[in-house]
């Protein structure tokens, strides 16, 4: 078999099924309303679809199935710790894995804090599995004391709390690679969704007697977005293939996909806000619930510096000797 960049029928089926599900259950209004809350019902319904454990031995799929799911979920800006859950399915076992896959156990992933500072932890009140990234390592943690709740740009509840490490996770690299793949597919799809609504606006809204889309200052940034996002989307798929084939370059491609997706999705966020003008900055408008989520996701996972190192490893550079 040679090159083939299309989803298998089964993968396309996953994408379609979730699209159908999100269209019905997770329109823009719902995403806006859910800001600040855990999407309890949606999460249970998504779990019922069998998506969460799909990349496990019993799940019947791999990273490509995750990508198919995340492309549909990203296009709907579906809430909740999606990529974190896929990560967790690569490092948990037994009952814990079962519970996460069933949507009964929520996963929280946070970055190691500086020195003695408190950790900034998403979903501190819901999470049963608390993970901490430090460089390319992942630690299991328990929370000490109760979190001081804050709100973050993306809308998810976060808490500042002390985390105590209870052990290091074995296959962190695999987990982080799947996280990167999943979050890239999601961000690229969310960006595509923005391009689509913005292009629709540009096709219809008139100023100075012509549609916005007739102005190159509008059309060209959107074209650039579309190009950049198609690269990101395809790179996430390529990384997923490498992951599923167990290839050496999977981690580097996954990191590259995340670097690519965060850049192209953020570029799209800024272009869409600008083109929508005042309409784009309203709370109920078509942009903000997407843009806040993209901005938040683009800071999730291992640091950008770590991603750079992994991508550079594909060009024969070893990690910096610092």
């Amino acid at each position, binding site marked *: 078999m040679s090159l083939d960049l299309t989803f298998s029928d089964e993968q396309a089926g996953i994408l379609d099924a979730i699209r159908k599900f999100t269209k019905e259950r997770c329109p823009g209004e719902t995403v806006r309303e859910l800001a600040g809350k855990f999407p309890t019902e949606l999460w249970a319904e998504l779990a019922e679809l069998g998506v969460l454990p799909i990349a496990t031995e019993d799940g019947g799929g791999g990273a490509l199935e995750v990508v198919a799911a995340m492309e549909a979920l990203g296009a709907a800006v579906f809430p909740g710790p999606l990529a974190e859950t896929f990560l967790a399915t690569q490092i948990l076992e037994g009952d814990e894995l079962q519970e996460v896959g069933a949507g009964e156990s929520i996963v929280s992933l946070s970055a190691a804090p500086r020195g003695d500072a408190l950790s900034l932890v998403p979903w501190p009140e819901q999470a049963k599995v608390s993970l901490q990234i430090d460089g390319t390592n992942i630690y299991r943690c328990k929370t000490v004391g109760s979190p001081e709740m804050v709100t973050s740009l993306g809308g998810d509840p976060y808490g500042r709390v002390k985390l105590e490490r209870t052990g290091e996770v074995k296959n962190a690299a695999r987990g982080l690679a799947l996280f990167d793949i999943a979050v890239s597919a999601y961000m690229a799809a969310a960006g595509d969704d923005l391009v689509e609504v913005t292009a629709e606006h540009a096709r219809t809204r008139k100023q100075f007697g012509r549609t916005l889309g007739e*102005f190159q200052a509008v059309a060209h940034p959107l074209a650039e977005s579309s190009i950049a996002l198609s690269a990101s989307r395809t790179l996430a798929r390529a990384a997923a293939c490498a992951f599923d084939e167990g290839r050496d370059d999977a981690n580097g491609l996954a990191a590259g996909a995340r670097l690519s997706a965060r850049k192209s999705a953020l570029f799209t966020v800024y272009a869409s806000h600008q083109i929508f003008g*005042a309409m784009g900055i309203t*709370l109920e408008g078509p942009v903000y619930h997407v843009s806040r989520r993209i901005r938040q996701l683009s800071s999730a996972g291992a640091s950008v510096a770590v991603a750079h190192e992994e991508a550079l490893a594909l060009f024969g550079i070893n990690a910096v000797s610092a």
Partner: protein
Amino acid sequence: MKFTFSDEEEAFRAEVKEFLKDYQDLNGFFDQGHDWPSVREFFKAMAAKGYLSVCWPEEYGGLNKSASYEYIVWDEVAYARCARPPLGPGIVAKTIIRYGDDEQKKRWLKPLRDGEMHFSLAYSEPEAGSDLASVRCRAELKGDKYIVNGQKCWQSYAQDMDYFWLLCRTGTQESRGRGCSLMIVPKDAPGITVAPLPLMDDDQLNEVFFDNVEIPVNQRIGPENGAWKLMNAALADERHIQFPPSRLRRDLEDVISWTRDQGLLDDPVVRNTLGDLASQVLEGEVLGLSVLDAMMRGEHGVMEAAANKVAQTISCQNIARAVTEFGGPESLVKGTLSELIWRQSMWETIGGGTSEIMRGVIARNSLGLVAKT
């Protein structure tokens, strides 16, 4: 050549700074919508010092100072984050001074000067944003009153203001900019509905609906169908204070301070970004001065103001975006400045003339390019 102010101007600045010390906790620049009573009091206190009418002629109770004093006032107020220049004592009052009749001057100027009367700009409509010459909100003269019908959109602060500065159509639709008039419309006039449009920066814009609203003809400022000239003159009056560069400086200083607190200040990649932003702030400062300089020389400053608007608003976004880039999840927590300015600055390249419109102005007037599309 001199990029600094005179001793007198600096003395005045010191006085303004002293005055502002009492308002260090006032966050009206970003949050006037949630703290209007305090901002209103602040404006009254400014009025008492003459700061709302710095450039007005003495005969109308102004300080009769040059534009540089007004620049200093609003630049320091922006640095202190207290407020943005209010419309009433600015555009509205200056237009009345220039084009109003004696009765209008008598009626409106004192309350404006005293910070007692506040205006919201009612120019934009759902189908007329950048292209104001296509406004449709209509005022028909019946006897000694105009009957106003139509809709305005994207009005800042309309929820709290007392009056609208209304751009409406008095000529044919086809007459475009030559068929528009400007009127003073009290918000409590029967037939007006204000509906909020909540914004991503926690502020709000408003839609305003006019349903057979009656406006006495003597509340029209300037000639019927003569709005365009008045609006251009008003723009010219405010160019030097449209985007005070100290807002940028304060943003960067606050970002640097946050970065230090996060222990990121010695990170070479962060440092590289901050160094670039520092040069952008310096650029903003000289561009701001260029607008003022043009005005002080009696020029229109159209090019300078367009350049200033584009460059500063983009730099202001660059600062916000850079810190959310290097600051990670911590920079996205609500309550951090970085998070707020990420959301807030999205508006800056849109409101008051989009970057695209401003680039077109430069391309046409400065480079001789048609760039009509």
